[in-house]
Structure formats: C-alpha cells, structure tokens
C-alpha cells in the first residue's frame, strides 16, 4: 500500500502547501494510493503511515531559503532535521512524529519527505505565488512517481 500524506493548516497561508499538493495528487491519480490530509497530530501521522510499504509526506518548512524551494529527505534512512519541521511548541512536528513511529517500529520501509519552503504563515492568507507554483509542480511530479510505483515500475 502506498500513501501520500499532505500535512498542514489550510487557514495559515503557506502552511497549506502540503494539503494543496495532496489535493493535486488526488485529482491526478486513480486508485492504489491513499491520499491523506493531516493536521500533524502525531497519532494521526503514525496511523496514516501504519502498514504502508511506502509513504510520501509533504509539509511546509521554514529554513530561510527562497520561497518555493523544494527540500527532499529520505526519512527511512535517517532522522529529519528537527528544526526545519517544527511548527508549534504545542505538539510534536513531522520530524518528531516520524521518530516516534521509528522508535515504535511503525515506520514504513520507505519514507520520502518533501518540504516546501514557505514565506508567509499569517491566518487567512492564500499560498504565496512561489509556493503555489512549487506545490503545483510537486503535485505533478509526485503523481508520476507514485503512479510508476503503484504499477511496479
């Protein structure tokens, strides 16, 4: 089973990037792949990964790079840089949630994480143009990659 998990908050500007990518992939794909939109509750994220052979996660990040910059990480191989995915002091972020899944032996064998660099996270704002364009490009590329994986190529 393949899973694509978009993480974010649709009401917080560029933080919606992961959700926009998930919606874009869902619109392009037919069957075989579960597309999940998540608010980054660690429990939900662990459950969303549970039993998957491979999972792709997309989230907005804030590293100081130009808006729309794409970061790619192999989370099955090593831990994500925690600071990059930390969005709240209130709860665990994507990096901690994946480490929790790894510690519990519940991490899929293959986990690829994409981070889209955001620039504005104010409540009620739309995606910034550079982030919207990057999300659209990533949705297209991921659709092709996931379809190929689902077909066993």
């Amino acid at each position: 089973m393949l899973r694509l998990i978009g993480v974010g908050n649709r009401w917080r500007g560029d933080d919606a990037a992961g959700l926009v990518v998930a919606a874009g992939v869902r619109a392009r794909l037919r069957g075989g792949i579960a597309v999940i939109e998540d608010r980054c509750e660690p429990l939900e994220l662990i459950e969303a990964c549970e039993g998957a052979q491979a999972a792709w996660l997309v989230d907005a990040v804030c590293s100081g790079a130009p808006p729309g910059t794409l970061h790619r990480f192999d989370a099955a191989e090593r831990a994500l840089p925690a600071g990059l995915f930390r969005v709240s002091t209130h709860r665990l972020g994507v990096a901690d949630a994946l480490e929790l899944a790894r510690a519990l032996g519940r991490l899929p064998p293959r986990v690829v994480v994409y981070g889209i660099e955001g620039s504005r996270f104010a409540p009620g704002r739309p995606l910034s143009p550079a982030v919207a364009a990057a999300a659209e490009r990533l949705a297209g590329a991921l659709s092709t990659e996931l379809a190929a994986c689902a077909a066993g190529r």
Partner: protein
Amino acid sequence: MPERRTKTIKTDVLARVEGEGAMRVRIESGRVTEVQLRIYEPPRFFEAFLRGRDFTEALDITSRICGICPIAYQMSAVTAMESLCGVEVGGQLRALRRLLYCGEWIESHALHVFMLHAPDFLGFESAVAMAREHPTIVTDALALKKAGNEVMRVVGGREVHPINVRVGGVHRAPRKAELATLVAGLERAREIALGAVRLTASFDFPDYDQDIELVALAQPGEYPIDRGRIISSTGLDIAPEEYESRFVEQHVPWSHALHSQRTGGGNYLVGPLARFATSFAALTPLAREAAADVGLRAPERNPFRSIVVRAVELVHAVDEALELIAAYEEPDAPAIEVEPRAGVGHGATEAPRGLLYHRYEIDADGTILAANIVPPTSQNQIAIEADLRGVVERSLELPDEQLSRLCEQTIRNYDPCISCATHFLTLEVERC
C-alpha cells in the same frame, strides 16, 4: 562570612508544556530571592472580541482558546448562557455532554501523563527518547489518547475543536449504535489507565509537600466535571455566581497571564490534586481501588504525585464514559429551545487542568455585552511560583543543569496550558 554569590537559572523556552513561556529563579547567598513564571505567549483578547457576538456563539468562539481542552471552554460557556436564560440541561443531553467531557479528560490526561510528564520521572528528554527504551508505554499512551479522541469524534463531531455542543443541548444526538463502537477501545483504555496508576506510583518522587487551599467544584454523588458548587479544603462553599467576590485577578509585570488569589490575600490551587482531595469519595469504585492499591490517599499534598492522581482520574473518566454509554437512551430531541434574556450568567466546569470560570453579560436580544474568562493555569501561577521557590530552596546543592530540570518538572506538575492562560516557558536561575 560566606562568599556572596549570585546565580540565575533560566530556561528561555519551556519544553513539554502547552504554549510558550519561560521561567527565572534568582538565588542570592543560598537564598531564593525571586521566582518568576513568565507567560510571554501574546495576549489573545478573546474577552474583547466576544462583545457584540450572539450568546449562542460564545461556546464555539471560546473553544478556540485551546486545542487540548476545547470542551472545557464550550461547557463553561454553555453553562453560563443556560443559567443566564433560566434553563438547565438534564437527562441524556447532560449525559452526552459529560461523556464528551470524559473524552477530553482522557485525551488530555493521556497526553500529559505519558508524553509530557513521564519522561521527567524516567529520565528522558522527550517522549521520542522514552519511546526508544519503553515502546510499550508510548504505544499504550497512543491507544489511550485514541480512545479519548474517538469519544470526541463520535459525540463531539470531530476530535479537535468539536462542533456538536449548542446552547440548550447538542446539534445532533448520536445513535446508540454509534456509542457502542466506542466500547471496545474504552475497555482497553481502562486496562491501560489501571496500568498507568501502577506505573506512575512506582516513580521516585521528591519529598515536597505544599500547604495551600485546594479549590474545586463539587456535586453530591458525582466526581466534579461539568457542574457543581465551588468548594475548598478550608471550608469555602459558594455558587459559581459568587466566584468574583471571592477570587481576584491581578496583573504582574513579568507575565501576560493574570495572577489569581483569594480576595483579601491567600494562595490557592485548582486541578487534579484539588478534585481528588475534595471529591475522592465520588470516584468510581474501580478508580478508588486503583488509588488505594498504590497507597494514594486524599488529600495528596505532594504536587509531584499529581501524575498518579491524573492516572486515577484517567481510570475514572474511562470508567464513567463506559457507564454513560451503557445507560444511554437516545433523547427525543437533541436540544431544548433557549430564549435569551438580559442579565449576567456564570459557568464553572472542571477542565483537565482545573476550574474554568466564565461570566457573560448579554442584552435582551442575546448580544454579548461583556465577558470574563478565568482559566486554570492562570489560577495556578502563584502556586507554581511558590513550588519553584520551595523546590529550589531544598535543592540548592544541585548543579544548575539538574536544578533546571527539576524546576521544569515542577512546572509540569501543573500541566500548565499557557495558550489558555495568556491573556507562558524559558527557565532562568540566577545565583548571587
């Protein structure tokens, strides 16, 4: 003459608490001269922007104050509005609300006991580090939290910021068959909660007792959750309407959260220790037995043992949720009609962290004219600072790093919800 040394221990961002805050302790020549719990998360102005809104909207607006305890806000708001309008919601509608509140207690206590506080006692920096050594504890914690989340989803409409409560009842009463789907998860949760009582009781606790007035709701025959009079360990017994004449909030320069005291002076404490002390007899027999089996007696005066009390409350909340589900009959209507009338209403319920008080003034059309919200963390700030002082004074010989960790653990005894309190954690210890 001993050498004069000043030392400051500070933590700029407190971890494993809800929200953003810091703390600072100043030690001069072996004496603690200053303790400040700084809640710097910005003020949120909820009370101001409730003005002009309809009386039916307060519960959903105030639930946005907290993602961990939204039901507490909904319940205090809805209780205030209903009492203002001369309506009391009873029978199965009240049972549904209490079930929903049990769901919040379960998910909130499970998060705090296992993921935020247990790492302190087991010597880990985080729940993730703890999970590597103790995967079963974390797996159990996640199952327990999930059982609470499911109650929130089925009864409240969704897990975070539920949307099913309304003035007069609920928007939609769940079918019996829907509640039946919760039973298996809750039965497993009850076993996990009983295990949590045994686990937490086996921790090493610093030797520290506090002498402070314990304040909680009380209602004959019921563990305090959704209603009751406000009572205390020193004889206070008042209706929620009298709250503001007996308790006073004041601003301190180092915190965005108001400090609460008894009118005329005197510190007090709200939360699990207070509820356990004043309503032990109202716990379910299983919860009382679980406490007795580990030697926990009411009143418990060591704040570090609050983690065991929370675990006992977990047993209670799961147990009561199962009882409520077993006794549930679908109500004829999901709500009773409530007409607004001009006046002032008061609502007090027990958030997982303690007493949450709301007051609203509305006009004859139901427009909110004024609002006052006193969250539990704000009420516990003085007690937290007093404990920090007491704990540091007993532990001056510890190296700074250990002292800092002990201070953070002390703060976490209160499961502080800083987001709720701002209108808080970094740790700073200064030794002189």
